[in-house]
């Protein structure tokens, strides 16, 4: 293990952290603009050109707001919960290949922090830990609504993890590897080799589960808007609340990357065009998250559970069995 490797890894971590923190901020701007246009409004317009600097204004507001720790909360847990959400979101990024490898001044850069051979498993596992942010935040808040919201979000996360895992199992059986780089290379032959054509059911299931895993509308029961509070985040203020937000948006970006790499060919053959296509695919999935928020209402918690256990899970299991039979014969 030489010094160059350590420096390179640290540099990659810093770059990923900076880019995706900034993107999480910009994500809120995109969300407000997209929602505004779909609802025939203009969205943020006053700060900077087209309201672009609204992100900076919001950031300054969040950073300078008083950090209120209410009475009766369990202080250390209350303080650490938002950090868990944000940290796990970024930890998941360690195994995602964001771009194909490229050469700068004779030095080959692999835009992946840790190319472990169980990449997809690691990403799912770390995203699963993200559940502790809302859960501990809600339980430490000494607020009944926060607690109810925490219980609800924990139930949703755990249930939909089953769908994520089972739906991914079928494509993984075809590829025969858990590494995201291998999955990408499996589809290197171009658009006809994309896994989405051979595994359309798994693709749709994973996509649906992605909404539950990131807590987005129509599965936005993490912070149930009908209760006119912010779910587990009710007692939070300032940057601690902002960390929950950054975690949610970073998760949206990372899960978009995972969908694009596993089902839609990723960066393809590794040329610049392929890398650019990956960005486009991720942008589309991110846009879709915003689109559903404008177009659909939230479902009820019991409907969500019904959908998970009585519809999606049997389909996912059937999909795995059918894939196995087809592969065998």
């Amino acid at each position, binding site marked *: 293990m030489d010094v160059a490797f350590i420096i390179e890894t640290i540099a990659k971590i810093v770059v990923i952290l900076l880019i995706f923190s900034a993107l999480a901020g910009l994500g809120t701007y995109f969300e407000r603009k997209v929602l505004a246009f779909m609802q025939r409004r203009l969205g943020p317009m006053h700060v900077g050109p087209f309201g672009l600097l609204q992100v900076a204004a919001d950031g300054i507001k969040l950073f300078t707001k008083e950090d209120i720790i209410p009475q009766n909360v*369990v202080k250390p847990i209350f303080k650490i919960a938002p950090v868990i959400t944000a940290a796990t979101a970024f930890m998941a990024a360690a195994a995602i290949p964001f771009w194909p490898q490229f050469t700068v001044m004779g030095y080959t850069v692999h835009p992946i922090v840790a190319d472990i051979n169980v990449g997809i498993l*690691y990403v799912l*596992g770390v995203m699963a830990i993200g559940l*502790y942010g809302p859960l501990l935040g809600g339980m430490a808040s000494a607020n009944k609504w926060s607690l109810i919201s925490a219980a609800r979000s924990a139930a949703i996360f755990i249930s939909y993890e089953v769908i994520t895992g089972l739906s991914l199992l079928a494509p993984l059986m075809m590829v025969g590897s858990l590494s995201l780089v291998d999955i990408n290379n499996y589809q290197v032959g171009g658009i006809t080799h994309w896994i989405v054509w051979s595994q359309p059911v798994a693709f749709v299931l994973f996509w649906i589960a992605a909404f539950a895993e990131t807590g987005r509308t129509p599965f936005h029961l993490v912070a149930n808007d009908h209760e006119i509070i912010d779910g587990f985040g009710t007692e939070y203020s300032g940057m601690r609340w902002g960390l929950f937000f950054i975690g949610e948006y970073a998760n949206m970006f990372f899960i978009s990357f995972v969908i694009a790499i596993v089902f839609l060919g990723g960066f393809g053959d590794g040329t610049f065009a392929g890398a650019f296509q990956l960005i486009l695919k991720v942008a589309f999935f991110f846009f879709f998250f915003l689109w559903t928020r404008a177009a659909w209402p939230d479902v009820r918690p019991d409907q969500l559970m019904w959908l998970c256990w009585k519809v999606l899970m049997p389909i996912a299991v059937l999909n795995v069995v059918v894939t196995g039979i087809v592969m065998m014969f």
Partner: protein
Amino acid sequence: MFEAIAFYLFAALTIVMFTITVMTSQALYAITAMAAGMIFISAFFFILGADFLGAIQIIVYTGAVMALYAFGMMFFDTTRNVVEKRTNPQIVFVLGVLAAVMVVAIFVAPIVSNNIQALYPIDAAIGNTQAIGMVLFTKYLVPFELAAVMLLVAMIGGIVLAGKKMDKSLTLMAEEDIGSMDDSIEPQAGGH
């Protein structure tokens, strides 16, 4: 050198976390520390090159088992300290020391007698996920299937226990129907 640093760091962290889990009287500290400890344990698997087991350790213990503990904790006030009833601290102390000595003896005995051999050493040609699959479906097939059957039994048992009146939805029922339903529910065993 890095492996040594990583090992001692994560060993210390794991011990600190599980000490907090045992010593604290605040349930939320205990569950957070235990979840963190479980994650730190996965670091040892990664250090040893067992990537698959490391990821599985995170998913199963932190993602699933601990989350179920957390579910159980929803039903009491976690912001208050738990007052334990210690009737006989001496017995607890003696049993604790005995258990610790036994664990140390179990792990030290093969090292002292130089009797450790890797039955299935890491084969660089095949990945570690494949290696686990081969061992599971050849040598350990019977325990593996047995575990699967036991989990199935537990799952069916869980569904049967929880499934009573599952076809009725409280949200969709009229007020008086819910009232009449309460009368028919038998008092729970154990109760208060």
